[in-house]
């Protein structure tokens, strides 16, 4: 997958399509390696203190983790991080930027925080306030990363241009059923066709919503893609 910007570096999922495996791997070998990975994680947790004190070990261990493909975040939670507490948050900052850039062409730079938490961070027991704290930390970089809420649902915008009120209203409608349409807009906001059409077209042009012309009622639906976190 050819990507631009920071999106080019990404998580190599379990199918690393690009890497061509020279050795003929079959499942026993794979299994053995993954069991070892799990044991390595437990081992790292027990020896956390020792690892933290010797910089040389720490550097080597982290490099081994990234070579094996273990995301350091998954090993250490808040109180057992190798460097010091803030590193844990910097790690989250980097991960958030990475995911936002990866999915920018899909959701136009607006991503739902709940989905980000549930789909990615939850299984590393990283809580919602950790994510929000990391986002606030990104402030000084002036990257145009901003949190906003629609009907108590939190969203993260990673592109500088702001959403207009009309666009926010449409995202509000989308948050109910996942999509919006001209009839829905007339029913809920009693917008005339002209107005909804032009706002919807504007959102499509800036990549905030996707067009679906195969709906059963025959009307064009506009779906909100902000829940899509990982593409592979």
């Amino acid at each position, binding site marked *: 997958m050819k990507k631009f*910007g920071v999106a080019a570096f990404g998580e190599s999922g379990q199918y690393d399509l690009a890497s061509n495996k020279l050795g003929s791997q079959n499942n026993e070998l794979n299994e053995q390696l993954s069991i070892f990975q799990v044991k390595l994680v437990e081992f790292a947790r027990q020896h956390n203190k020792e690892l933290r004190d010797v910089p040389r070990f720490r550097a080597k261990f982290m490099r081994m983790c990234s*070579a094996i493909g273990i995301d350091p975040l998954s090993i250490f939670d808040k109180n057992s991080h190798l460097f010091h507490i803030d590193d844990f948050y910097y790690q989250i900052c980097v991960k958030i930027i990475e995911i936002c*850039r990866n999915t920018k062409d899909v959701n136009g730079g607006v991503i739902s925080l709940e989905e980000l938490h549930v789909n990615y961070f939850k299984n590393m027991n990283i809580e919602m306030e950790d994510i929000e704290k990391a986002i606030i930390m990104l402030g000084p970089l002036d990257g145009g990363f901003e949190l906003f809420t629609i009907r108590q649902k939190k969203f993260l915008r990673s592109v500088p241009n702001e959403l207009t009120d009309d666009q926010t209203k449409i995202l509000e409608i989308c948050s109910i059923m996942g999509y919006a349409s001209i009839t829905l807009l007339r029913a809920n906001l009693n917008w005339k066709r002209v107005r909804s059409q032009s706002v919807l077209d504007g959102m499509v042009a800036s990549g905030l919503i996707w067009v679906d012309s195969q709906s059963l009622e025959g009307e064009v639906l506009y779906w909100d893609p902000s829940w899509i976190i990982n593409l592979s």
Partner: protein
Amino acid sequence: MSAGFIYWHPVEIAGSGQPILRENERDIYVEQSVGLYHGKTKILNKQKGRLYLTSQRIIYVDELAPKKESVCIENDDIMNVEYSSKFLKRSAKIILFFKELSQNEAPIEEKGKQVHTTQWNCPICGVENRIYSTLDSNGLNMPPCGSCGVEVDRDMVQNSIKTVVEDLEETPKENICPVCTFINHPQIRNCEICGARLKQSRRTSKVKDSRVRILLEEKTPSGEESFAQLSFRKTDGALFYETLVKQLQEISRKESKHLFNQNVLSVNGVPTDPVIDPDLVLSNNDINLIGITALEKNKEQQLLKNNIVMSNALSDLNKLMALAEDIEKMYQGNRKSKSNESILLVDREKYLNKNVFLEEIARELYGFVDSELRGDSGIIVTLVDLFALYNKSVRIGTGLISPEEMREACEKFEKLGLNDLKLIKINGRVLCLAFQDSFDHIRTKVLQLATMRPGVDILQITTELNVYEKNNWSMGVISEVLQYCVAEGNLVMDEQISGTNYYFNSYWKV
């Protein structure tokens, strides 16, 4: 003239543009459109050519001027190899670390003026083998035989072992080829007639080979360079890397059997446990294992070996650390190692006050942006992207830096005299790091594009800027520049449902 240059050697190129291989040199793999770096700087007019990996050398054949610009590096000179995968716009690179000169010379001097050669013939295929040094007396089996690759145990061969001691009275000036006794020029590394390795080759001459032309892009303020980089523009170079690693292992195994680490007790402070023989860990897929011995090494054996390593690794921390590389190799099979060695460990604890630490980070940042992101027309990168990129690729293993520290470090460039890189704010809202004239450069580029191809969109502009010219502009930065041009009135927009097209504003004067 930094010592690093002596590792580049000339190559004879046939009319067809193919390199002329030496006598028993076997070519293994060819890669397209590769560029050469000496240390961190690009080597001028050696940026696009074919790279041949052979059993003895890595040969670079330049596309434009094969005869003049082709060079090669001897495999023996390479100490170890690092792979760094494709990253943003930076193409995949293989970093070759050269052996320091001193290390090369030591073994010869130590042995005084004589050279011992032992010959024995292999009971299986009857070939008469010869090695240039004494046998390790208590070793159980002999080194693998040259033709059938079988490691026979000592007593089977006892009677046919002959050790011949030759002393090197004749002045080192002469360079007699051990195979065909042709007297070569002292500087030559391989005998001109039969291509065999010459003893002299060990003593790499200090002086740079005059026939090689190395012009660096410009002298960056970096010290003695003892590494080179191969940058893969088209493919991701993983296959080339894996074959090269195999090849180097092959060489090191042949050598290490006799010269280094003989019955030594501990390696850099960690006791080598007799149970774990480094060979054990290597996966069995050596391409150039010759002869029948390759037959026995199969999956079961590999599984057995891994088990031994794994159980040992987790016994205590020291063991784990000692086996870190081996464990990485175990995974080498199915996953490229993404981390690249950061040469200088800027570790937070090392610095007493924050200021010094930040200055060090600023230098490291400058080096990173200069070597990895700078394209032909400079670079502008948003601070947010740079934060993720820098932490992910350079800071791995040495502790990340905070967004706060990143910004403070960037504000220190001025003070450190690195003032061709500075913070700028585009459209008053997005903070970026940019080289001196990059912003005007890209602005004029974008305006030119809009005049040449009216109705151009951001996708076309990014491809034009990044693909046809070697740059790394991110889509985010380009869209900011476009908004700037629209705000200042040079560009006008044609908004379509498929996105925005841009035209040069030739009608309405501003």
